[in-house]
């Protein structure tokens, strides 16, 4: 790869109080590709992905050490504004979390806190975001109905639309399909495949087939360390580490 990485992580440690949960992670995440983080439960992949947009800041006693650069700027730098950072780095969570508001207001949320008031502009972006999240045709006649009336898969796509509306550069997805049935899951996966033309996507998944289907690059985490990362095909068919091979072939985890 000739391009500079979109996200560049060097010697990143993370602590919850005295417990060290990430040990010296170094990883380059390329722009406009899907990078999947795999590994057994509790291996630190969620902690890692939540460090990229500093979502862990809200946990007391949690702190990171080392550097995470986005386009060369340190996420944990003293002059980094976390609100601005999170606008550039969108996130979709494991459990879909639509606000108890209308579908329209959910997608408008990020735009409105950014100060957008123009109704026509809002309408446009909301339609575009819902279309990109492959939800527009299902909800266009009930934009002002409560988002909580949607099905689980629709809610998750709404959360994706909500994240896309503010036009982030990076989209972090923390097991976005783990609570969904296979049909909804395949819709989300198709969506990820389409979105990677425009966004840098980092996805945490427990599901190895999913990582194999959607990712370009795959990183394998184990006990808070990055064991191996590389091209998806290499990781799944010809990994260097024995541990990676055991995991991707289902011998443990």
């Amino acid at each position, binding site marked *: 790869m000739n391009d500079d990485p979109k996200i560049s992580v060097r010697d990143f440690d993370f602590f919850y109080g005295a417990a060290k949960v990430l040990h010296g992670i170094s990883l380059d995440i390329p722009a406009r590709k899907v990078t999947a983080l795999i590994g057994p439960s509790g291996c630190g992949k969620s902690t890692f992905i939540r460090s990229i947009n500093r979502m862990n800041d809200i946990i007391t006693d949690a702190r990171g050490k080392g550097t995470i650069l986005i386009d060369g700027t340190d996420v944990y730098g003293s002059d980094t504004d976390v609100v601005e950072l999170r606008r550039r780095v969108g996130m979709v969570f494991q459990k879909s979390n639509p606000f108890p508001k209308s579908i329209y207001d959910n997608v408008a949320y990020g735009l409105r806190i950014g100060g957008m008031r123009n109704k026509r502009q809002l309408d446009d972006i909301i339609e575009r975001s819902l279309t990109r999240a492959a939800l527009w045709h299902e909800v266009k006649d009930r934009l002002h109905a409560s988002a909580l009336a949607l099905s689980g898969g629709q809610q998750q796509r709404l959360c994706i639309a909500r*994240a896309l509306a503010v036009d982030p550069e990076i989209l972090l997805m923390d097991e976005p399909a783990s609570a969904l049935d296979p049909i909804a899951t395949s819709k989300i996966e198709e969506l990820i495949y389409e979105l990677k033309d425009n966004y840098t996507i980092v996805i945490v998944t427990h599901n190895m087939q999913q990582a194999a289907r959607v990712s370009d690059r795959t990183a394998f985490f184990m006990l808070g360390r990055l064991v191996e990362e590389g091209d998806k095909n290499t990781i799944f068919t010809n990994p260097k580490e024995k541990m990676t091979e055991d995991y991707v072939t289902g011998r443990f985890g």
Partner: protein
Amino acid sequence: MTANLRRRKIYSGIFETLCALAVVVALIPLAMILFYVIKEGFGALNLDFFLHMPKPVGESGGGMANAIAGTLILIGIAAAFAVPVGCLCGIHLSEYPGTKFSSIVRFAADVLNGVPSIVVGIFAYGILVLPVKRFSAIAGGVALGLLMIPIVVRTTEELLRLVPGGLREGALALGATRGRAVFSVIVPAALPGILTGILVALARVAGETAPLLFTAFNNRFWSTSLTQPIASLTVQVFTYAISPYDDWHRQAWAGAFLLVMMILALSILARLAVRRLERMNRS
């Protein structure tokens, strides 16, 4: 059926019976209060009661128009004072649950909740009546507000804590500041419950007499001035009930009936508000 199973069924039957009995015992006083208040009060209630002023001793008829207006004004002052203070305090407690300051505030709210209402009345008397040497609606309203605050604080805090953490994360992940996340997502999600808490607290203080005796005092005349003594249904009922006149006794029953109905109306209103808001939240 084995002996063991039979024994378990008998125990189960005994405890179910005891539970049902306890419910009946708890309901008897409630039913009797309602029965007497309705029986004595409903007949004494008429249009005059709502529209007319109290008549001088010896003349029959008249009503409690001033006391009805007074009670509304008093609980209005109480709400204006207690709702902002209580809600903001509850938000602070739920946002910073672990700090030393929060645990002190929480403890203080619980103590204040247990303080007898007459003590709160004396306090309001001390700071708002003595310095100006005059009973006033303000003093009564503040006394009632002080009684409301702990209820509003604790319900607000508890309901905010029930809001799933995912909503906060969702708002923050979209670039909301912490304050923005609280006021645009978390508080609205808990609003139906908070509103119920406020109405329940209002219903509770609307029925208070003791803290008004030496703050709002009473007033036989029409008054809506906040700096003058003001009549209230509870104090008027108290005054009439201990008087030696039959006509006043009837009026006291009517006042009691009206109080019960007001509180019932507030409770129903609370439920309707919840249902309406929840419907908006759900579908």
